[in-house]
């Protein structure tokens, strides 16, 4: 019997067709537990689709996707719910529930999936918001927050259940460079201090260099380059080199 740790995420020949175009084209890759992978690529190359496929929010037309030992692609609703509790997802625009407060947003997964009583939930919510520096804003409504604050609340909510894997969609999109850097710092803390597996989709090369120990560039639904930032810097492919030289802010 093998005791080898399964990869956190595995794509096995995945194809997704949207509007007659293969957004993911026979895509295969693995992400090891504890690894931090940044997925790069131009708009429309299937980066966000990759994240949503891991989460089971989109179903591929062919191929299989695994989270640890569980297959996402043929999971029933109960299995999918179980898989999703092991995944945190920070959406591009945070996707906070705008009818409830910041504190209630972070408490939401805890109320759904734990037996914690109200006092315990309040303590966890306070601790999670303190991690992202927003403990004073617990009673605010999402509409009262800036873009950076919304992202940080989204991160606190994504980490509420302490999932071993965190998926992040464009963490720096729409943020000024300083706020974007603050979000990157929070992701680095999760990577270094909590051993969280990070899969981050970004256009922002400085951010990718900082957060990702491994960078993977997608082009037309396929892996164009995969390796460390240094590996991609030395790539023979002119598109990869051009992308790595850019300072795009997402």
């Amino acid at each position, binding site marked *: 019997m093998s005791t080898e740790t399964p990869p956190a995420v595995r794509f096995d020949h995945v194809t997704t067709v949207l509007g007659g175009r293969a957004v993911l084209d026979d895509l295969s890759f693995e992400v090891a537990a504890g690894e931090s992978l940044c997925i790069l690529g131009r708009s429309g190359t299937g980066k966000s689709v990759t994240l949503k496929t891991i*989460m089971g929010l989109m179903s591929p037309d062919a191929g299989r996707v695994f989270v640890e030992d569980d297959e996402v692609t043929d999971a029933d609703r109960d299995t999918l719910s179980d898989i999703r509790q092991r995944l945190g*997802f920070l959406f591009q625009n945070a996707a906070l*529930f705008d009818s409830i407060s910041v504190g209630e947003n972070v408490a939401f997964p805890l109320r759904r999936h734990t037996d914690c009583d109200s006092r315990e939930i309040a303590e966890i919510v306070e601790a999670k918001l303190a991690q992202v520096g927003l403990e004073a804003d617990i009673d605010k409504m999402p509409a009262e927050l800036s873009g950076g604050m919304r992202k940080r609340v989204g991160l606190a*909510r994504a980490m509420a259940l302490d999932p071993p894997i965190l998926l992040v969609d464009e963490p720096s999109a729409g943020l000024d460079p300083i706020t974007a850097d603050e979000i990157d710092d929070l992701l680095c803390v999760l990577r270094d201090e909590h051993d969280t597996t990070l899969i981050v989709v970004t256009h922002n090369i400085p951010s990718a260099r900082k957060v990702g120990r491994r960078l993977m560039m997608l082009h037309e639904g396929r892996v164009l380059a995969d390796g460390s930032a240094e590996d991609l810097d030395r790539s023979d492919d002119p598109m990869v080199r051009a992308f790595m030289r850019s300072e795009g802010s997402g």
Partner: protein
Amino acid sequence: MAGKVRSAVSSWLSQVGDLAGFAARAVRDIPRPPYEFGEILRHLYELGARSAPLVAVSGLAVGVVLSMHTRATLERFGAESMIPAGLAMALIRETGPLTAGLLLAGRIGAGIGAELAAMRVTEQIDALEAIGVDSFRFLVVTRVIACLIAFPLLTTILNFAGIFGGFLAETLASGMSFQLYMQRAFAMIDFPTFLPSTLKTMAFGFIIATASSFLGFRADQGTEGVGRASTQSVVLSSVLLIVVNVLLVQLIFVLFPTVR
């Protein structure tokens, strides 16, 4: 040209099929636990209690107008004493349920369509799923249950407000006392008259909640999609409600022959 027509018909049929599947899933999931009591109570307040002033004021106005029209007609035959009974019968049997249904298609249909469409375009529905919550049960089934409970109650409020409005108009015209008016109004109202027509509004509630949720869930990207979902929710709910009402009236006549 023929190809375009075929494609349009095919797309329309596909949407009708999707809506039917959506409604069937709602029917299937309503009795299934776990029940989201907190969300149902929240929707009962938002969709039900907050609609009460609208239906009460509208009912009052409908009652006044119906009374004025009924008086103008019955006066010619010297049958003014039938005004309270005629008005109550008309309101409870048909005018009340249909008026309540159409009013609520506007208020609740637009509200559900816009709210769910906004949640769709801002990825809040995806966020619910990402947290491991069945978004259909959490967002759709809870609203459908709230509407099933709220619609008969709101219709009853509208009916009573209408009868009271009729009394105001009648007492101004003829000085009829409140006691006499109510005695005459309810003289011909029995349970077979009141119950089926009031309970049929549960079907209206189901139609409005499912049609609006369906359009909200399918909203396209952007604020334009939110506006479109809201408008289409009102239009689709109203049309379906009027058509289904014809079938329900016929069904009531078959099941309760004394109502005819």
